[in-house]
């Protein structure tokens, strides 16, 4: 279907955005890469009065490193995330996630801020920022506030964003040499949203797991941090036994809804398979061969 009629204004600064939001209230919608918003408008899922294009607001772009933190501007497009040297070095999980996101033509437009704001439960980047223990920087006319990624996603397609706020950036703690990360997923076709997926971050202390964060996607209302599975790994040597314990704990951690892909038990099965796939990658090469 064609888009409904709406107005269009390009904002040059954040002050432009605040002014337009004050004038139009709920009728104003933020337009970034547009790869979700414009598709949903084609279904007439909403009829905004005004689209406020923020893609040329310089304050929302750029990738930089300071004080042990990698700051990724909300307007960073998926394709940029996939080829940026700072991301590759300091948050390799995000670079690894990019090829799973839709298709090249969409990755050239879609932004990390947009993906996080939409909070699709089967999307990769929300799970990645939760696994990384990242912080979401929110801006409004009143200033900035910071929300841990794990508290940002509050429900199905719902976030901690308040009216008048937008995502300014994502701050990711820089990966240490002991940090390991992996993203794995099962999708019917390349580029589709995942039937189930896992973004995993583990800090190793020799063979032992000092800390683990497992964020599953496509199996709940948003990214699901599997507390039981994480506890099952914590402090133990990473190996067949601890991986099996983590898999077993998923029975309590995950309560996947039935969806068009299949019933909850199938999703739990996929989550167990993905858990072994991801964690096995952190084993020394000899153990993988065995």
């Amino acid at each position, binding site marked *: 279907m064609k888009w409904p009629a709406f107005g269009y204004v390009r904002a040059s600064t954040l002050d432009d955005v605040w002014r337009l939001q004050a004038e139009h209230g709920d009728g104003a919608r933020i337009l970034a890469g547009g790869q979700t918003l*414009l598709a949903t408008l084609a*279904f007439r899922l909403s009829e905004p009065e005004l689209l406020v294009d923020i893609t040329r607001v310089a304050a929302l772009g750029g990738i930089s490193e300071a004080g042990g933190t990698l700051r990724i501007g909300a307007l960073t497009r998926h394709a940029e995330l996939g080829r940026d040297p700072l991301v590759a070095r300091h948050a390799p999980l995000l670079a690894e996630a990019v090829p799973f996101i839709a298709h090249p033509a969409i990755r050239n*437009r879609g932004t990390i801020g947009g993906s996080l704001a939409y909070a699709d439960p089967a999307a990769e980047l929300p799970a990645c920022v939760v696994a990384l223990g990242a912080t979401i920087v929110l801006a409004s006319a009143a200033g900035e506030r910071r929300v841990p990624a794990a508290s940002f996603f509050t429900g199905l397609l719902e976030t901690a964003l308040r009216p008048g706020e937008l995502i300014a950036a994502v701050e990711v703690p820089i990966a240490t040499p002991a940090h390991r990360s992996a993203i794995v997923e099962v999708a019917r076709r390349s580029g589709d949203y995942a039937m189930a997926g896992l973004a995993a971050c583990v800090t190793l202390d020799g063979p032992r797991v000092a800390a683990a964060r497992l964020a599953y996607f496509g199996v709940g209302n948003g990214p699901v941090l599997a507390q039981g599975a994480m506890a099952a790994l914590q402090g133990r040597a990473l190996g067949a036994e601890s991986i099996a314990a983590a898999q077993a704990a998923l029975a309590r951690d995950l309560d996947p809804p039935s969806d068009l892909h299949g019933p909850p038990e199938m999703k739990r099965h996929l989550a167990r398979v993905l858990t072994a796939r991801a964690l096995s990658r952190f084993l020394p090469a000899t153990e993988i061969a065995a």
Partner: protein
Amino acid sequence: MSARVEITLTVNGERVTRGVEPRRHLVDFLRLDLGLTGSHAGCEHGVCGACTVRVDGDIVRGCLVLAASLDGADVTTIEGLTDSGEAEDLQAAFVARNAAQCGFCTPGMVMAAADILRHHPEATRDEIREHLSGNYCRCTGYQAIVDAVEQTLVARRGDAR
């Protein structure tokens, strides 16, 4: 609040200025306002890839870009790609391999395939399939399409050696 927005942009090397309705997407702008009907409007919600064009050198879904947002942009369509001769060998391979059946997906498919030629000249067959995975061919003629792209890449690599 849907007043026309004036944009000046470059399309296939020519500078154009038009007033567009905000709801006009790039493919309709190309087809209906500029008469460039090579880019096809298929699903119009970003799934099929028939509307693939280049904006500032990168391929995009033409149906998921507002024409109004393109002031200052540089757009290349299948017409511009053809005129430049940049993908002449690829287009010849599409014909030779019968990779265009009904032809509806072909312009978008060629734009996406030309992106492989430009940015991934060493792409394997699997990588070609992956790169084209967002372009649907409802005749299901994928083998011939991948063959045509692979043949072009191999020939170019041969020429370079």
